[in-house]
């Protein structure tokens, strides 16, 4: 945590304790450990996937179109003869970038808005809450569709749209977490120690709301991936021939009835695994950032 290193000298003992604690969390909960392993796999796919896949994900070859999974093409080939396995792996990078960036933006903006409204209260709080209510009153996917349709069909706009629909969840959570600690003893003590209100809020109150935020982040990463894939599925956002799980499912869907199930199944499976991984990671992340879980 950056606040810990900036407010007092971190000791090697403390860093060691953090590592030991992570190990403990993983050992205590094998599901968490499994989700971290899967997360590492997705990160690795995103980082080095494009360099290690056996085929060029964009190279078409009509001679081998619509082949069932085989040793040469473990996930089969699509209607243009592209290797589905290579495309699924290469798509990881784009899907992760969209979801992580969208969640990061909504986390930051939501945290700032929620922290201010929770700490200040009064009319700022009322106004902000009504604005957030308005956003949440829309069906979120329809809102995202509208934003992308209005702002133009690009990856950047998908990220922005996904971020906007997620902001209210963070803002509300942070607001609640901040407002219950506004009058806490350690907040008053921090003021007496000569901290300005901004410092008290940013370095003392906000970090204490991180544990529940981590659960929200991990669930949100899953939703963000689904959201981006959903937008691509209906033709908004990422354009073909770019490999992306949502488009690939959309393209493959046309072929399911004629028996070529692999085109839609494998990108869908990866989508499912990614969402699954993020959701499972939540509790583990919370336990890691919460010092009270350490004994």
């Amino acid at each position, binding site marked *: *945590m950056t*606040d*810990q290193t900036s*407010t*007092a*000298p971190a*000791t090697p*003992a*403390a860093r060691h*304790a953090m590592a030991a604690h992570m190990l403990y969390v993983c050992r205590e909960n094998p599901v968490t450990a499994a989700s971290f392993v899967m997360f590492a796999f997705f990160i690795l796919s995103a980082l080095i996937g494009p360099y290690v896949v056996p085929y060029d994900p964009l190279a078409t070859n009509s001679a081998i179109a619509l082949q069932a999974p085989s040793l040469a093409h473990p996930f089969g080939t699509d209607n243009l003869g592209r290797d589905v396995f290579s495309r699924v792996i290469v798509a990881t990078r784009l899907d992760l970038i969209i979801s992580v960036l969208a969640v990061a933006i909504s986390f930051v903006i939501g945290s700032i808005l929620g922290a201010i409204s929770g700490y200040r209260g009064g009319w700022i709080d009322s106004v902000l809450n009504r604005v957030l209510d308005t956003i949440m009153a829309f069906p979120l996917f329809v809102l995202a569709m509208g934003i992308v349709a209005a702002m133009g069909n690009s990856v950047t706009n998908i990220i922005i749209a996904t971020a906007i629909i997620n902001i209210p969840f963070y803002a509300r959570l942070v607001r609640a977490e901040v407002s219950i600690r506004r009058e*806490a*003893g*350690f907040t*008053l*003590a*921090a*003021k*007496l*120690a*000569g*901290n*300005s*209100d901004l*410092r008290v809020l940013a370095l*003392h109150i906000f*970090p*204490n709301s991180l544990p529940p935020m981590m659960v929200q982040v991990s669930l949100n990463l899953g939703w963000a991936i689904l959201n981006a894939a959903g937008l691509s599925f209906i033709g908004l956002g990422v354009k073909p021939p770019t490999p992306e799980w949502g488009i690939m499912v959309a393209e493959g869907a046309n072929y399911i009835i004629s028996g070529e199930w692999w085109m839609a199944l494998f990108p869908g499976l990866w989508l499912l695994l990614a969402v699954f991984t993020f959701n499972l990671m939540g509790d583990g992340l919370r336990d890691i950032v919460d*010092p*009270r879980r*350490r*004994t």
Partner: protein
Amino acid sequence: MLSIHDLNVSFRTRRGDVNAVKGISFDLAKGERLGIVGESGSGKSVTSYALMRILDAGGRIAAGEAVYSGIDLRRASESAMKDIRGREISMIFQNPRAALNPIRKVGHQIEDVLRQHAQATAANAKEKAIAALEAVRINDAAARYEAYPFELSGGMCQRIVIAIALACNPKLLIADEPTTGLDITTQKTVMDLVDDLVRARGMSSILITHDLGLASQYCDRIVVMKDGLIVEEGDPVALFTNPQHPYTNRLVEATPRRGVRIRSLLPEDQRTPEPPRTIGNDPLLDVINLKKTYMGKSGPVHAVKGISFTIREGESVGLVGESGCGKSTTSAMIVRLLEASSGQILYRGEDLATLPALQFAHHPLRSKIQMVFQDATDSLNPRHTARQSIAEPLLRMSKLRGDKLRARVEELATLTGLPTHLLDRFPHQLSGGQKARVGIARAIAPDPDLLILDEPTAALDVSIQALVLNLLCDLRARLGMSYLFVSHDLNVVRLLCDKVVVMKGGAIVEAGSVSDVMDAPSDPYTRELLSAAPQAPQRSIA
């Protein structure tokens, strides 16, 4: 009537089984009032939970017998226990507000227990519930029947809890710290009420408390528990005047009471002479006609109605009063966490009340006025280690960094008696006394001249309280600090303070030197406070 033999209670935890109660035995006769006294972690509450079979998940009676009027409480079926709880054995819990359902009218909550034990029908339940409220001397019981818990004061809530506990005329009443968190005069009325009811109905009672004085006033016999074992048993006077076990002796000595010095609270081998200190003639802090008025929904609320007092250099002043008297508001204004409505706070002649509280964080005087908070747990950031908490004011208000900062934090820890190897622990890994020391070390870190102590020992066991009070006594002599000691406990104020200011309803009712106010109070309210404080039987000087 109740016979416990070799009772063992254990809890399953991450690190294997923990024995909370390790084989205790006692008997309770009909009509007897038993006190179980011990400090936190002694197993006194767990014993009562085991009798009621309401132990937390993972807890179980590992061995031993508990027989109530021929019923084996350990082996009784859950449905049999349901009939026993409330009708035969009832319990009053520590926090009355938490023991009541916040969204149900209190009258209905009494009806629930009457209906559960078939003591009332739908037709006469209301009538009986009102009668139960009248039995605990609630005025205008019919109107209170309709009240929700949040509309009632703490003392009133505890009366409701007592009404629920006694509604079905149980034979045995277990009261688990029934007056913790209540004001001292409320404590007296609640305890007197329970005592009268128990005697009038010929019930037996078990009072579980950490307060030896309270137990000695309201019990016929006391058992002292420590670490899950009974160390001593006897009648209150004998226990006080001639304790056999060293632990009982230490507990008796650590209880603040009339006529002792602060050092006598400590075990004999730790009684070093009190360090000398000088009280100057110049005023350090002059509070003049200080007022605080809030705008409430139904007009202005006068929390502090124009109070004036002076703290001289090196002097310790006690600010005494019950909840709602304005003592916390006063201290918050002095420490600049709250704006004053009007009046002056002169610190060495400079008026702090004119400086906005919001900007005071960067004022040079910030370091000179510091505060120790009531709840040590709540006042430490759960994400910061003890070292980070103590270093915080130094980082903000001094230029110490790196090794010098580390050395200063360790010096402060040593000064407050906190072992330096505990500095890298988080608050939840420290005991209550250790957390209190971290809070004190943090407050004295920027070298304040005035330390405001807001009930710093209220949440601590008496033996820990004795240590902390003596630490405060040493620190003021060593560092030349003045104290404003905010407390409801007159016995503690008497030990530590030179002067005392008694507040009631936002105004000062009496002020003067400790000996004047305590030994010859002129105001009836002060007299009431003094008489309400439970006094342990005086120890014969042998």
